[in-house]
Structures are given as C-alpha cells and as structure tokens.
C-alpha cells in the first residue's frame, strides 16, 4: 500500500510538467500579442516602439523554450511570475482570490454530498414510488439546465422576486448561498442518479439475496448495499472536486464572486499569460491529487483493492 501511494505520488511530477508545457505552448500560440493588450489595458497608445519595449520588459522577445525553462524553474520555487497587467506577483493574486473560491466550492460540495446521499438512498429504497418519480424529474431538469441559466433563474426567484438573498458580491454568509446552490445543482443531479442506480443494481447481487435469507433487517441490508455502491460515487467525486472549482468560473461571473474563476476569466480577456498558466497548473494539481486521494480512500474501503497492490 505504501509503495503504491509513493509510486502514484512520484507519477504526479511528469504529468504536471507535461501539462504545464502543453498549456504554455497553447497560450503562446494564441494570435493576439499580450504586450499590445497590456499597453491598451494601461491606456497607453500601442506604438511599435512601445510594444517592442513592453515585449522586452515582459521577456516575450526571448525564444519559446528558454521562456518555458525559466518559467518552470521559477515556478518550481513557488514564483509564478508577475501579472502582465497589475505587475503584482501571480501568487499574491491567486492567494487573494483562492479563499473565496474555496469557501464557495466547499459549501457546494457539502450541499452536494448531503442532498445527493439523502435522495439517492431514499430513491433507491423507494424505487418506482411517486417521490422517486418526482426526484427523477428534477434530476432530468437539473442535468439538462446549463448552470448560467439556472443561476439566473435562481437569482431572479430568490434575490429579485422574494428578496431573500443578495444578487451578487461577497457580503457575509448570506451571499454565498445562491452561488453555492447554483454550483451544486448539476452535481446533485449527477450524484443522486449515480447513487440511486448503483444501489438498485447492487440490489440484484447475490450477497443481498443472502442477506435477506439471513433475516437481516431492511436497514442493515440498505447499509450493506450503500457501502458497496459508494465506490463508483467516490471515484466520480475525486473528479468532481476539481470540476467544482473549475465550475466556479461561470457561477462566480454570474454572482460577481471575487474568486479565482473570475480572476481567470479576466486574465483570459487581458491575455495575462502568467495568471492563466498558474490557473491551469493549479487545476491540474487539483485533478491529479484529488484523483489520487479518492483512489486511496477506495482502497481503504475495499479489502480486495487493498490487497491487490
């Protein structure tokens, strides 16, 4: 088990280097010139001389591989460079925005897990009942509705019509609820369906028949089925946590939530390469690490995987 974890941790580094190179390459192949955009944002006239000075200043005149190499070495030491626009260190900008996103994503995760576990189990136990059908209807709508539209509807209903929550900004606990609910909507429908369906599938298994034969209580049998169904959801959850943070891009923009999603979108509009690059690397780290953690949790839950390694 220890060797397995160590192997997986070591495998992270080549993956990250690969991703960062690819991202660096793609951003640099974009047609617009960041030096020009940087000048425009600072309301300077973009004369050829000014652009050339700016390019030198930002280090854009050096060859691509050299730039990548310097960037890689610096970022390994925790220095992701300075923003082209604000001239602040990227790390500072990220640090400022990250807590807001983390709060939003954590609350969404909490809502997602609670709601989908409750309704997933309930629907599996009461398969085919009226309640199950209603929940499935909601799942259908929730999956089909894009989050920007759902977000606007929710905002209109709860903030404008009933005036229960603020429409945007970050101002106390009140203002986090609408974006968090919007963000969790798609995940909730995915997970209710996943939990419900794996549990119903599991119910056909031989061990459930034997559990019934042994005269176990319905509650105990449901517990057995749930634990066996958990693995599929956990693996999916490993992928969903980074997706939650990535998903904040849209929700943060709708609700004007000052997190990294908004930071990234602004950076994309401004061709602020260092921030985009840092954002991509951060997302990659999140994906890889969350996946690894979920694999380890699955192994801890399932004795068959635990010994297989």
């Amino acid at each position, binding site marked *: 088990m220890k060797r397995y974890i160590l192997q997986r941790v070591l495998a992270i580094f080549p993956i990250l280097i690969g991703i960062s190179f690819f991202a660096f390459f793609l951003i640099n192949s974009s047609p617009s010139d960041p030096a020009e955009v940087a000048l425009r944002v600072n309301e300077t006239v973009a004369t050829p001389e000014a652009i050339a000075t700016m390019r030198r200043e930002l280090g854009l005149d050096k060859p691509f591989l050299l730039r990548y190499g310097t960037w890689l070495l610096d970022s390994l030491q925790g220095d992701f460079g300075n923003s082209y626009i604000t001239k602040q260190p990227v790390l500072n900008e990220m640090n400022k925005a990250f807590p807001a996103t983390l709060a939003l994503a954590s609350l969404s995760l909490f809502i997602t897990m609670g709601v989908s576990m409750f309704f997933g189990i309930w629907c599996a136990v009461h398969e085919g009942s009226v309640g199950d059908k209603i929940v499935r209807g909601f799942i259908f709508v929730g999956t089909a509705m894009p989050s920007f539209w759902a977000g606007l509807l929710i905002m209109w209903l709860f903030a404008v019509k009933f005036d229960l929550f603020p429409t945007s900004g970050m101002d106390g606990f009140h203002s986090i609820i609408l974006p968090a609910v919007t963000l969790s909507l798609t995940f909730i429908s995915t997970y209710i369906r996943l939990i419900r369906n794996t549990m119903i599938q599991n119910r056909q298994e031989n061990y459930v028949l034997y559990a019934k034969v042994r*005269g176990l209580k319905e509650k105990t049998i449901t517990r057995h089925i749930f634990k066996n169904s958990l693995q599929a959801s956990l693996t999916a959850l490993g992928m969903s946590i980074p997706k939650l943070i990535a998903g904040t891009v849209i929700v943060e923009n709708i609700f004007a939530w000052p997190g990294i999603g908004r930071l990234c979108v602004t950076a994309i509009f401004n061709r602020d390469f260092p921030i985009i690059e840092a954002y991509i690397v951060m997302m990659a780290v999140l994906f890889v690490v969350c996946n690894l953690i979920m694999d380890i949790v699955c192994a801890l839950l399932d004795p068959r995987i635990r010994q297989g390694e």
Partner: protein
Amino acid sequence: MSLLNIRNLTVCDRRTDEILIKDIHFEIDSNTCLGIVGESGSGKSVTCKAILGLANPWLEVTGQVLLEGNNLLNAEQETLRQIRGKRICMILQDAMTAFDPLYTIGCQMVETLCENGQYNKTDAKIIAMETLQKMYIREPRLVLKKYAHQLSGGMLQRCMIALAMALKPDILIADEPTTALDAINQREVIEEFQRLRQITGMAMIFISHDLGVVQHLADKILVMKDGEQVEYGPIEQVFEKPQHIYTRYLLDTRKALTKSFHEAMKVRRSNKC
C-alpha cells in the same frame, strides 16, 4: 400437521404471462430431508425463493406455503423477515458471491446472530467460533477475520453451513450447495450436511441436479421438469419403481455415467499391469 406444507405453488411471470412453476405439492416434517432434483431451469431455485417470499417482484406467486398452518404467502414483510434465518434458513448455490465483499465473514456472522437471536456481540462471536469448530474448520479465529475473497469456495460454503447451524432454524433449504465445488470438497460438504442433520434434527430441503448426492441425504424425493413436478415419493420407491419417464431417464443416465466411469477405471488398471 406437517412442519411445512406446500400446496398448489404456482409462479407466473407477470411481464410475459409465462408460467415458471406449476402446481407444486410437497410436505416436510422435522428431522426429514426432501431432495429436489431436476435439470437447470426446471424451477428448483424459484420454488425455494418463493417459499421464503424472496421471488423477484415481477413474479406472481399463488398457492399456499403453510408453515405450521400459517400461510406465508399472505404474511407481512416483517413477519417474513423474522421467519427467514430463524425458522427457515437457506444456503445459497454460489458461496463465492454470497457474502458481502466489504465486511469480514466474522462481522457478517455476528450481525446475523445479533439480529436474529437475543445474543449480544460477545456471545455471538463465541457462538460463531464454536459452530465453525463443529464444521471442522481448523482456525476459526483466523477465518472470522477474513474477507470472502480470501477464502476458497468450499470454505465459504462451510461458513454458510456453520451460520445455518448457529441460527438453528426448523427448516434448512440448501440450494445446490455442492455445484460450485470440486469433487473432494463436494464429498466433505455432503458429510457436513449429514452431520448437521444428526446434530440439530432440523428438516432439510436439499436441491441438486445430482441424483447421487440426493440419494445419500434424502428420505423423500421430488423430481421437477420444466417447472412441473413429475415425481414425488419416498426415495427407495422412486429409485426402484420410477413412475415417470423422465425419472427413469435420469436414473438410466446416472447408471450409464457411472458405468462408463467404472469401465474407464478398469481400462486404466489393466493398462498399468
């Protein structure tokens, strides 16, 4: 009045209106063993699940399943749950998949004993250990700590038998308990069933497609074909004077098989000389 009395048991698939089992009759007293024989798909397992109220929801079960005069087919789910395990227990065909893979065998035995009997956890552990010992399992303490995938099919089958023994039901249904096992394990498991009967005196329904196995254990025999009962009677009578052509065919095939086996052994012996 016999312990378990099955009358006109009919199972019908609601989705296709196909009749899976038609008019099964049999009865069973304590300390006797009924063998149910038939080929795969003849409805043996469905019969047993129907008795326990565990037939799939799309199956319609009609007739009467009388346990000491009470019809189980009309019983509440909770009543049925209390009957399962405590009064009628079943041993499944495929031991490898019968236990929950995520819990140890010990954990599952203890939870069964706790929920069925008035045992607390400590007592249940001791009882699980004792019954495993009675099944001649050498290191019961270790076996209890194992997960299903760490044990062989034969060992798991024995754990299931041990659990049935600890539950002390009035009736034990064994659904092809030897099919998944190799010949050596098969013989041992059958001996264990014989021992189980001697120790507890419980009534037993033993399902098999192997006439030889049933011959060792059963007092009465029920032969099924395509969901219908073609022969039912005391074992000597069925073996000596089979009434139905299908029973005769089964007996002849068995004879032919053992004959060719004996001949093969003879050839091998003469080759060796």
